[in-house]
C-alpha cells in the first residue's frame, strides 16, 4: 500500500486585517506599498477566544462534509502547531474528542512551523506504508497573531492565522506504471538559526520575562520578549542557501528535471522572497504558485492552502506532479514530490 493525498480543506478565521488598517498604524507605509512588498492584501486573525484547536476542528469538519471519508475511518491524527491551546494536554487529543474520532485513533502534536506540512506528509507516509494506519488526518493549525506585538510591522504585515486538514489514505498503486504518490523526501535542519525566528519567553527556559519592557529595533518595530521576533534578513539569507539546494537534491533523488514537474508550491513566506527564489532557481512562472494575497503567511498551512486553491481553480489536475518545499523557523526545511490524485479511493 502507498500513502496518497485524498483531500485538503482549510479554514480561516472570520476577522480580517487589511493593508488600510496596517497603513493607519505604520504611517510611513501606504497600503499599496505593503501590497507591493509583501504580496498580501489581507490576513485573517483569530479572535481572542479562538485557538488552534478551534480552527483545526472547523477545517476537519469541512473535510468530513465533503463525504470523502467518515470520521470513524480516521485511525491517526497528526497535528502540527506552534501555538497549542495548552502546554498539556496535546491539542490533537482535544481535537480527537471534539471531532468524534474513534478512541482507537492515534493522535499526536508535532511542533514545526513553515516546514511542518512536508514533515507531516513524511510522517503520514511512514504510518501508512508500514501498515500502522489507513486514513491519516494531517492538520496544520496556527495562530501566530497571538504572539505578535501590534507595533511590529515586520511580522504583522506578513502572518495570518488558519488551519488546513489533509487526508492521507492507503491506496493500491501499480508501481510499474505510476510513481510514488508522495515522495521521496529531502529533509534539513540547522538549529543555528533558532534565534532568528523565536518567541524567547513563555516556555520553560523563561516562563515570565525578567525584563518585561518594550524593545524597539533599528527599524522602529516594537515588541516584548514574549512576542515573536523575526530577523527577516537572516531568514531571507537562509532561504537563499537552503531552498535552491533542497530543490536540486530532490530533483537529483527523483531523477526528474524541472521540466517533468507540473507545479511548484513553496511555503508562502512573502511575495518578494518567492519571486526572487523563482527567478534564482529558474522555475517557469506558469508553474510557480503564489497563493498568499488573501491569507498572508499562515505558517504550516500555506502549502495545503495553495494546493487546495490550485486544485479548485483547475490549475492543478489529477496525475500532475507537484513539488512542495517548506522552510523556515528552526531552521527546518523539507521538500517532496506529490503525484496529485484527489478523492481517488
Amino acid at each position, binding site marked *: 500500500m502507498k500513502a496518497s493525498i485524498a483531500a485538503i480543506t482549510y479554514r480561516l478565521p472570520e476577522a480580517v486585517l487589511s493593508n488600510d488598517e496596517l497603513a493607519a498604524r505604520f504611517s510611513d507605509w501606504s497600503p499599496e506599498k505593503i501590497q507591493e512588498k509583501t504580496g498580501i492584501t489581507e490576513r485573517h486573525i483569530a479572535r481572542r477566544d479562538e485557538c488552534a484547536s478551534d480552527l483545526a476542528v472547523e477545517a476537519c469538519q469541512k473535510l468530513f462534509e465533503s463525504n470523502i471519508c467518515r470520521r470513524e475511518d480516521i485511525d491517526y491524527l497528526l497535528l502540527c502547531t506552534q501555538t497549542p491551546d495548552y502546554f498539556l494536554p496535546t491539542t490533537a487529543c482535544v481535537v480527537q474528542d471534539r471531532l468524534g474520532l474513534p478512541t482507537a485513533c492515534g493522535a499526536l502534536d508535532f511542533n514545526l512551523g513553515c516546514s511542518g506540512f512536508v514533515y507531516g506528509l513524511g510522517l503520514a507516509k511512514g504510518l501508512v506504508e508500514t501498515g500502522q494506519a489507513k486514513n491519516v488526518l494531517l492538520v496544520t493549525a496556527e495562530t501566530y497573531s497571538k504572539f505578535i506585538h501590534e507595533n511590529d510591522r515586520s511580522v504583522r504585515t506578513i502572518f495570518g492565522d488558519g488551519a488546513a486538514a489533509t487526508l492521507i489514505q492507503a491506496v493500491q498503486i501499480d508501481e510499474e506504471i505510476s510513481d510514488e504518490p508522495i515522495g521521496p523526501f529531502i529533509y534539513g535542519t540547522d538549529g543555528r538559526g533558532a534565534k532568528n525566528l523565536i518567541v524567547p519567553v513563555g516556555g520553560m527556559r523563561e516562563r515570565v520575562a525578567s525584563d518585561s519592557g518594550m524593545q524597539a529595533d533599528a527599524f522602529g518595530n516594537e515588541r516584548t520578549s514574549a512576542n515573536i521576533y523575526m530577523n*527577516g*534578513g537572516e531568514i*531571507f*539569507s537562509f532561504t537563499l542557501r537552503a531552498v535552491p539546494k533542497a530543490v536540486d537534491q530532490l530533483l*537529483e533523488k527523483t531523477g526528474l528535471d524541472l521540466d517533468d514537474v507540473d507545479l511548484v508550491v513553496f511555503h508562502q513566506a512573502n511575495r518578494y522572497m518567492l519571486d*526572487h527564489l523563482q*527567478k*534564482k532557481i529558474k522555475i517557469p512562472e506558469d508553474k510557480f504558485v503564489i497563493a498568499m494575497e488573501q491569507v498572508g503567511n499562515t505558517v504550516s498551512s500555506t502549502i495545503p492552502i495553495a494546493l487546495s486553491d490550485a486544485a479548485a481553480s483547475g490549475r492543478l489536475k489529477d496525475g500532475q506532479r507537484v513539488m512542495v518545499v517548506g522552510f523556515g523557523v528552526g531552521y527546518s526545511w523539507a521538500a517532496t514530490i506529490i503525484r496529485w490524485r484527489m478523492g481517488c479511493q
Partner: protein
Amino acid sequence: MRYKSLEGKTVNRDEFVPQLEQVLEISPGTLREDQEVRDLEHWDSLKLLEIIALADEQLEVQMDADYLSKCVTVGDMLKLIEDTAARKKV
C-alpha cells in the same frame, strides 16, 4: 533543466553601484560612500532584503544579514559585499 548555482563573481563597481543606487532609490551617480545608511530616505528592513537579493542575483553570494545591518555607511556595505564575494571565489 536542473538548477545549478554559479561560481562567485568579482564585484565590478561600475556595474554594481548603479544597481545599488536603484535599490536604495538614489538618483544615478549620486551614491556617496560616506553616506550613512540609516539616513537614506527610503531605508527600511525591506531594503535590507533587497540588497541581499541584489547580491545574490548579481554576484551569487548570500550575505550575512546581521553584518549587513551593522554597516554604518554605504561604503561599509559595498566593502562587505565585495569581501563576501571575494571569499566565495576562493
